[in-house]
């Protein structure tokens, strides 16, 4: 019994069925707790006022935007090496979620930046690399949509995902080189001496957990949809032949 057995489509449908409500439930609970706690039961920042509270959406969304791409990279590698169809479908399912998270991070950042920085948009390294990440997501989804044969599409998008990962990292360093930033540095590192204050930190943790659960739930749901879609296509093809 190895972990790969769970990647069998039938097995996958079996174990994700019961897991799915739990994932959605945990996401709903932790997001409600985290957001309500963050929005109504934390003090205003002494300089930023209540705008600081956008952190509870901005930071988790940005985190998941990057992690979604990372998950697609891992799933693509698994597809290329072991050729599990579920893996390719999971990568495909993750891309629109990643796009949404990227847009959310960019949008909440703009909303926060407008009163704080006095501008909606600045060509700051972090902002720019997120925009580039967004373009990578668009290209990835477009390639999936353009190719008819599912296996060819899975292969080509996997290659694109790997190459894109390298270039995404490269772009991150290139834009650092190109322009000085307006965005603050990391304030949530585990090893840093000065982090965000505990008052904001704990509800933020709950929100991050909520986004992770939401991401997992959405990926499982979308992957299940893709598997069902493929089954329907197979049945249709069989019916057409008979």
């Amino acid at each position, binding site marked *: 019994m190895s972990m790969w057995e769970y990647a069998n489509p039938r097995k996958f449908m079996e174990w994700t069925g019961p897991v799915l409500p739990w994932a959605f439930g945990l996401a709903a609970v932790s997001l409600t707790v985290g957001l309500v706690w963050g929005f109504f039961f934390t003090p205003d920042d002494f300089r930023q006022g209540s705008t600081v509270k956008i952190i509870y959406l901005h930071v988790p969304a940005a985190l998941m935007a990057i992690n979604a791409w990372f998950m697609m990279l891992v799933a693509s590698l698994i597809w290329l090496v072991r050729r599990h169809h579920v893996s390719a479908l999971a990568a495909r399912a993750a891309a629109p979620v990643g796009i949404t998270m990227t847009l959310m991070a960019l949008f909440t950042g703009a909303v926060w930046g407008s009163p704080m920085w006095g501008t909606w948009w600045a060509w700051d390294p972090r902002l720019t690399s997120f925009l*580039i990440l967004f373009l990578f997501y668009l*290209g990835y989804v477009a390639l999936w949509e*353009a190719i008819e044969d599912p296996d060819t599409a899975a292969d*080509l998008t996997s290659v694109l995902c790997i*190459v894109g990962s390298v270039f995404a990292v490269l772009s991150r360093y290139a834009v650092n*080189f190109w322009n000085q930033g307006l965005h603050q540095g990391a304030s949530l590192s585990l090893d840093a001496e000065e982090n965000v204050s505990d008052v904001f930190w704990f509800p933020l943790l709950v929100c991050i957990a909520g986004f992770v659960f939401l991401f997992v739930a959405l990926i499982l749901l979308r992957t299940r949809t893709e598997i069902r879609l493929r089954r329907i296509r197979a049945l249709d093809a069989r019916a057409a032949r008979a």
Partner: protein
Amino acid sequence: MIALLRRDLQLAVRAGGGFGLGLAFFLIVIVLVPFGVGPEQAVLARIAPGILWVAALLSALLSLDRIFALDSEDGSLALLATAPIPLEGVAVVKAAAHWITSGLPLVLAAPVLGAMLSLPPPAYGTLLLSLLVGTPALSMIGTFGAALTVGLRRGGLLLSLLVLPLYVPTLIFGAEAVRRAADGLPATAPLILTAAISAGTFALMPFAAAAGLRVNLR
């Protein structure tokens, strides 16, 4: 490989259109810019490095879908796949042919167009050098994009969507080198980084391009 390179070059020169087209496009973009932003010398000099690099990038993009499309249509790509040279080698040769027909003319024409945009004199050498070491990366990355989309009937637009984000680092370092030179600063670091991207893409991208070709030929 030499024979393949010679064949591709001859096809590009003799089959009309492809060879001069990129260069003409480059020229037109540069000519259009002053109409858009106004003829003041100071403004043009300020934006010249960026405009020259963006125009080079766009004109490289213009001829990308021809890299594999014709070979795929008449079946010679399938022949190349069964030929003794590996597909990785084919990808390198294709990229080199694309660079010689579209990148090299740009490099040679760039100083003239730089003069039209009143680029500051100290930047000419750097402009030439940065395009010389940067455009090979554009060709190689583009070959990878062309390999991914060779099986599609209308891959042109998709190709630009795939390839342009990959061009970002090259553009940043290349244009930064020219800008620094125009401001009278040392431009060695961005030049070296541009060259590093070219070297890195020529070392690694052929494998990705060949993988894409193999999938598309399956």
